[in-house]
Every structure is written in structure tokens, then in C-alpha cells.
């Protein structure tokens, strides 16, 4: 059950990513990427990384993609469907190409699973508590305290830089 769910979400993630890259319309690309990141969050939950999964939904699918959507609408970016420098395969931008690519990806995964890489397969991994908020938080506030504080400094710098870049006149 867990395995089939995992492959379902993996196909959703790869299909959405392919759609992002192949579709000429940026608006559709943003929405497809939100869908892909939601699938990735589901994969994180299946891997028992609950804290990271929640962050994926909040930060990536929420904040970052809303920012992308905002900029796409603000700039009114045209679709580069008829751009002469774009290879022809990128101008199709329809679902059937993505479906075809997904079939190939499925075949590739099947081959990978049954070939030499199968030697690397680990034995059954017991369930752990490492993905819980308390475990990650404990590591963040003990061993990784200095990088954690530096991350807040980085965010402050990014905030100031963004305001400086985006404003017409300071």
C-alpha cells in the first residue's frame, strides 16, 4: 500500500515537473509546479519526514509559488510558444507528450529496479521517530544552533536586498 502510494506520487511529481519544463505558458507552469510540490510533500510524509513535509506545503507550495504566480501576473509574461529559438518539442506543450515521457520514465524505473542497482537495496528499515518535529527541532537548537541563527541573518539580508532591488528610488 505504501509502495503503490509512493509510486503514484512520484509519477505525479515527475509529470508535473515535465509539464513545467515543456509547457510554453508560464501561468500553467506555475500551477503545475504547485501540484508537483504537493506530491513531493506527500512523498516526504510517506518517508516519515513530517516536519519537512509540513514545511514543503507551507514554504514551497504556499509562499514561494504564490510569489511566482504574483510575478507572472505582474509582468504579464507572454507564452513563448512561437519563439523561433525554442526547439520544436517545447512548442507542443500538450498533455500527450508528458504522458509519453511518463511511460518511458516508468520503463526506466522498472529496469533500474530489476538490474544491477538492486544489489544496493537495503534490508527492511524499521520505523523511526527521526522525522518528528521534536527530533528535528532538538537537532536544530543544539548542534545546528549557529547555522540556524545565521539563516535568520541570511533572510534579513535577502529582505533588504529585495527591497533595494525592487524599489524604483530609495
Amino acid at each position, binding site marked *: 500500500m505504501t509502495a503503490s502510494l509512493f509510486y503514484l506520487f512520484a509519477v505525479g511529481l515527475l509529470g508535473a515537473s515535465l509539464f513545467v519544463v515543456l509547457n510554453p505558458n508560464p501561468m500553467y507552469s506555475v500551477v503545475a509546479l504547485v501540484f508537483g510540490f504537493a506530491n513531493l510533500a506527500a512523498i516526504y510524509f510517506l518517508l516519515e519526514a513530517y516536519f519537512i513535509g509540513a514545511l514543503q506545503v507551507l514554504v514551497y507550495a504556499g509562499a514561494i509559488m504564490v510569489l511566482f504566480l504574483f510575478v507572472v501576473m505582474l509582468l504579464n509574461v507572454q507564452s513563448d510558444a512561437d519563439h523561433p529559438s525554442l526547439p520544436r518539442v517545447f512548442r507542443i506543450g500538450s498533455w500527450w507528450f508528458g504522458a509519453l515521457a511518463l511511460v518511458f520514465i516508468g520503463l526506466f524505473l522498472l529496469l533500474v529496479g530489476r538490474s544491477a542497482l538492486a544489489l544496493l537495496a537495503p534490508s527492511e528499515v524499521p520505523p523511526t521517530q527521526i522525522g518528528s518535529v521534536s527530533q528535528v527541532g532538538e537537532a536544530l537548537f543544539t548542534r545546528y544552533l549557529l547555522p540556524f541563527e545565521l539563516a535568520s541573518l541570511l533572510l534579513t539580508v*535577502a529582505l533588504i536586498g529585495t527591497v533595494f532591488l525592487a524599489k524604483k528610488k530609495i
Partner: protein
Amino acid sequence: MVVPLHHIIAISGLLFTIGVVGVLFRRSAIIVFMSVEIMLNAVNLAFVAFSRYHGSVDGQVFVFFIMTLAAAEVAVGLAIIIALYRNLRTADLSEIHELKH
């Protein structure tokens, strides 16, 4: 968890490849930027998978920092795209070649 580790790593590699293709072939700055995000997420997936299968929390702490970095990067990068658009009236990377000549 019944999914073998190398399947997750294969998916991560495929995701990274899709991101590289997007960066190399697309001309729209916003799509290129989204492809970079896809690559970052492929790396995050690999980190979480190894963290889960090796029973260590360090990989997930790394993912936390990568997400922080990605948020800062997106804010600054989109501000740069807006500034470019304001000055050149385009977000097409093939038409931005001021530094070339």
C-alpha cells in the same frame, strides 16, 4: 517502508535532469527560475531519503537550511527579474545581452 532506496534516488536524479533541461532550453527567465527550484527539490528528496534510510536526522536539518536558502533566493531573484523587466521591457533571456558586448 517497502520502497527500496535506489528507486527514490532514481526519481531524484530524474527530477534533477528535468530541471537541468529546463534551465538549458527555456528562454523565459521565470521558467528557468522554476527549473532551478525543481533541481533544489530533487536534492531535498535525496537528502530526506538518505536521512530516512540511515536513521539520522542530519539530512532533514540540511533540507531545512536549503528551504531557507531557496526562500531567500526566490525573493532576490524575482526582484532582479522585475528590475530587468522594468529596464528592458522583457523577461526573455535571449534578448538580455548587455554584458556580452
